[in-house]
């Protein structure tokens, strides 16, 4: 693979070009933030988060999945239809949708249309309550603390902080991109986010492991900057290959679900694909300058103390 070697041979100064590479994330973050604040845009939350209404109807000759779909498309709302086998015999369809104030209007209209075949209609609560999201948040935070403790034992504290910052960057970027592209967020997004977090940590660690190794055996008396650049250069091949192999699975998943129109799987694969790219970006272009800054500051402070 010649191109791989070519990239590796480019003597690019990763540690010194931090300022250039911070621009893109900041711009994306700002656009995301502005869209979040503007009322009516924000995250494109799906039914799992918003809740909504549910109407259950019997399956008959005229009431088929396609018929319901045509009907629901008239209202221009997000909806899902699931088919159920009732224990009392017969098949029913559950139509879930959310149109905020218009919910009761749609319920009435559906009840009118399907009259006696309507089994039940109701409002539904969001599947993910505030409480559950918070519990996910706290467990992620606890996991980060665990990670930090491990890194304190194995690496310099600055490496730990850089890893966490890179992690924060990756998470923020995905959220911003989800807002910008208005990708619908459902429960599967939490799984995607966790995947990206694990991946991001893994990526940073491989780089820092290399840095630590070189700092230890620094026979050629290289500067921190040279060590960082070399570390990135040496992990570059691995980075690209690993991303390529993981992306292969995910992109196939995305294509297959697009073909089969499995919207939940699309909502799942897309954020992970975005997350992998964002994670690769941060581990290539952001980790080195951040660590360089922190370490130089730490060394200067140490020298001052010594005086």
């Amino acid at each position, binding site marked *: *693979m010649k191109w791989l070697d070519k990239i*590796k*041979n480019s003597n690019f100064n990763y540690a010194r070009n931090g300022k250039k590479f911070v621009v893109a994330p900041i711009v994306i973050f700002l656009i995301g933030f502005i869209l979040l604040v503007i009322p009516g845009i924000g995250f494109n939350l799906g039914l799992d988060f918003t809740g909504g209404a549910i109407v*259950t109807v019997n399956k008959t000759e005229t009431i088929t999945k396609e018929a319901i779909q045509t009907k629901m498309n008239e209202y221009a709302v997000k909806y899902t239809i*699931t088919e*159920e*086998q*009732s*224990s*009392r015999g017969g098949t029913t369809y559950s139509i879930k949708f959310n149109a905020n104030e218009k919910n009761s209007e749609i319920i009435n209209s559906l009840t009118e249309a399907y009259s006696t075949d309507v089994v*039940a209609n*109701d*409002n*539904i*609560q*969001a599947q993910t309550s505030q409480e559950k999201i918070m*519990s*996910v948040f*706290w*467990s992620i935070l606890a*996991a980060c603390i*665990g*990670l930090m403790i*491990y*890194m304190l034992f194995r690496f310099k504290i600055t490496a730990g902080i850089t890893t966490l910052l890179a992690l924060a960057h990756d998470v923020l970027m995905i959220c911003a991109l989800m807002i910008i592209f208005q990708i619908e967020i459902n*429960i599967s997004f*939490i*799984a*995607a986010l*966790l*995947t990206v*977090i*694990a*991946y991001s*940590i*893994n990526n940073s*660690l*491989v780089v820092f*492991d*290399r840095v630590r190794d070189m700092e230890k055996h620094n026979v*050629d008396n290289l500067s921190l900057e040279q060590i960082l650049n070399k570390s990135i*250069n*040496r992990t570059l*091949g*691995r980075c690209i*290959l*690993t991303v390529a*192999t*993981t992306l*292969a*699975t*995910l992109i*196939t*998943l995305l294509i297959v679900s697009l073909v*089969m129109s*499995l*919207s*939940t*799987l699309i909502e799942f694969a897309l954020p*992970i694909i975005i997350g992998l790219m964002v994670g690769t970006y941060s581990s290539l272009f952001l980790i080195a300058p951040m660590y360089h800054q922190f370490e130089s500051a730490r060394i200067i402070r140490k020298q001052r103390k010594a005086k």
Partner: protein
Amino acid sequence: MQKLKYNKNYMNKTKAIIKFCVISLVIVLGMVLCCAKFTIPFTNTNYEGCFNAIKKKMGIDLNGGILAVFDVEAAENSTDLDTEVNATIKRIENMLSSKNYLEATVTKQGTNPNYKIRIEVPGMENTEDIMEAIGKPATIEFMEPTTSDNSSTYDANKIFMDGKGLKKVTVVADPENAGYYALKLTFTDEGTLKFRNKVKDNGGQYLSIFSNGELVSAAQISTENASTLGADGTVLITRNNGGYTKDAADSFALQIESGLYSVQLTESQLSRIPATLGEGAIMAGVISLLIGLVVIFVLMILVYRDFGLLANLSLLVYTIIFVFLLAVIDPIQLTLPGIAGIILSIGMAVDANILIFEQIKEEYCNGKRFSAAVHTGFNRSLITILDANITTIIVSVILYLLSDGAIKGFAITLALGVAISMFTGLVITRSLAKLYLYINPDNAARANIKLKANQSADGEQSTPKKVEKRKLNMGGAK
């Protein structure tokens, strides 16, 4: 530099090739065992194959499950229906997860006062199972202390406390009757107070507990115990004649527990539902995992040639072990987040191999002989692999302990996958590479490792002297 000896008598090229063939055969056998389905010879036991076992464990999103909707009816003396419904939901969630239905979702629908509780339980086969899991409710009532003669007759006027005074019911070992079990009732603060008030001045009297109007226990409060009984907020129910067996205690505890629902539930809908992700979801997942694996195989061979083959063999071992463990380990329930965990851990399994090969390449470029570079490469990448994987395991263990439902599924598959990938990367790939060195001890080009004329991404260390030395070695081999 590490010195290596190869005992040519013990192992030669032919033997090594034969060994590779045997290993490949074992791997093929493992793959067949994953998919096959047969009756084990000479026995009547059916071997169902891993995929069937895994399919049974798939969550509601992939494989469907049971949906139950209950109408909520407020209790007579209900004060705050919202809190009561929420408490009931919490209680049902706990009961389902204690029965290993980790991915069950319990949600509220409707508005006050016409609430409904909707329960979705993935992996459950029959509609009857749900009633078994959340219990046929039993009431529990405490009757004022009375004389021995009256203690076994239910008297509604004398009931001073019901299930509302209880926080939880647990099954503990019977302290006086080895091998048997007792129910430990834990009171709420208010319940403790009520209980104490009735008991403390009534030493010698009989305290009875009824469940669904039937006598469960009528015990004499001994005079010396009256002042302390229930002071810690708990009381034990034991059975006199022989004590409770574990099963009896469990089912009784469940009955009481479900009697503690603050509201009354009546079934309104009970049905079996298909996969919520849509019918092709499993198909889509399997197709993309397979294509993903093929891409990985091809890419590894393109980039690392012979070493790529080794990595692919070890990746196959990884896949087989993973499939077997997914089928065998009980608390694993496979849902979308679980699949995310699998995809990620496959990536990390490949990553381990890539890290090793890159390190080998670097060692070789630094002037080591090919075989020595392989050995040092493995040794030096060990630390990187350990660090990267241990952190991932730490993160997933914390996630597993602190979160519930779907996230647990992610954490468990990720931790499992990473643990297996460490094994295959550090043990399997390593032994395969050692074996490979008997076939090809010094031709690095076959592992796509070449020195460039201008030796250097990193430039340093490759003094002309070292290059010359390497050339000599290679020449010797020819």
